[in-house]
């Protein structure tokens, strides 16, 4: 049987949607096993400021879980802002203890604001045994305007200071020579 080009186009359109649907249902089916919650929804910070928040990982399934790894993700919604998560938090991965059914563990995260812009933070927990990932709700972090040094009037300072010391040195040496 010969398949028409229109039918091929229809299959090409539907197949990815089916795959997406499969992935989505996988995520929703696994979301009931582990719940990741964060104690903040949004906060503002100034550049250089350090903030902390806590996430709680709860085993909502019926089996014990082991080998869970929590990871803090930091990204920006502004394409013009560069974010290197390494700069923002030195400790972004934490290994959880074994969690029995119904148990939970609290994890504290510290982030230092580096550049200004809109940031999104979330904690993802990987269940390596079942090859699944669970994520918390996002935290919206807004880092205020970055204040950089105003370069106006720098030349008089950087020239006059050494010049003043040089003048003092010259006067001292001259005085010394006269005394000798």
């Amino acid at each position, binding site marked *: 049987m010969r398949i028409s080009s229109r039918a091929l186009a229809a299959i090409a359109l539907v197949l990815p949607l089916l795959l997406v649907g499969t992935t989505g249902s996988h995520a929703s089916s696994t979301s009931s096993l582990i719940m990741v919650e964060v104690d903040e929804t949004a906060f503002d910070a100034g*550049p*250089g*400021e*350090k903030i902390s928040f806590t996430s709680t990982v709860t085993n909502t399934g019926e089996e014990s879980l082991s080998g869970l790894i929590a990871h803090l993700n930091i990204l920006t919604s502004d394409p013009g802002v560069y974010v290197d998560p390494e700069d923002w938090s*030195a*400790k972004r991965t934490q290994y959880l203890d074994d969690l029995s059914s119904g148990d939970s563990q609290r994890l504290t995260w510290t982030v230092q604001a580096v550049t200004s812009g809109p940031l999104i933070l979330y904690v993802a927990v990987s269940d390596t045994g079942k090859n699944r990932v669970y994520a918390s709700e996002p935290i919206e972090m807004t880092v205020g305007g*970055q*204040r*950089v*040094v*105003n*370069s106006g*009037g*720098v*030349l008089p*300072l*950087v*020239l006059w*200071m*050494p010049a*003043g*010391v*040089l003048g*003092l*040195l010259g006067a*001292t*040496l001259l*005085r*010394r020579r006269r005394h000798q």
Partner: protein
Amino acid sequence: MTDQAISGYDAPAPAATSAWIVVAGQELRDLWLSGRGLTMMLAHTVLLSVSTYLIATNQELNFLEQREAINLVLKVAVVVGCLLVVIAAADSISGERERGTLESLLLTPAPRRALLVGKGIAALSLWFAAFALSLPYLWWIGRDVGTFPSASVGGFVVGTLLALFLVGVGLIVTMFSQSNRLSISLSFFLLLALVAPSQLPTGATRGWAGELLMRADPFTAGLLYLERLIINAHTLTQDVGLLATPVVAAVLLPALALGLAGRLTLLPRSGS
């Protein structure tokens, strides 16, 4: 020290004046009126000027947030000020020994401990001058964010503690060094070794060993205190625990140097 300066020690001191004050006065005159101290200050201000100019105009460095820029300049001022102190202290005895003036100095009525105190004060004066010269730069960089008062007070406290510690280190090294080159290079190496942990990436200071190193090294602890004071806008007393090691080092090393003053000889370890 010059022969003329040594002869100054022979003059009988007034009854109320301790020997160390006479020595300190002579050493200060020798350091500042000879032009040596001012030459060091010239190098210091040139370095600060270059750093400040780059921070203000260079696009890469001006990306720094203003508080980070203040912290950077303050760290440069503290570390370079301490470098000047350690060089002067390391030169104080071995320099005399190498120039052949130590014998005359030891023959003066001034006790050896007074000689060390006087030389230590002269070395320490370099820090105070270097810090005073760095204040206009700190004020200019931080003039919009209001961090100048805390940066200047914190920088003065931390820098003075570290300078006292290095005076002790320099005096101990110079007392037992036969050559000036050995004394200065050893003191310089010690300073580098003490500053190096503060430059380690954050990840390297994690864990008990990293925490211990951070608190046990006076330089790392002092610079971390300044960083929290300026960048994180902490109060002067919030991280005062970090100053425990610098305080202990600032008391212990000069005291140890004074304790060892009795062992100051013309040619140590030479056996001759």
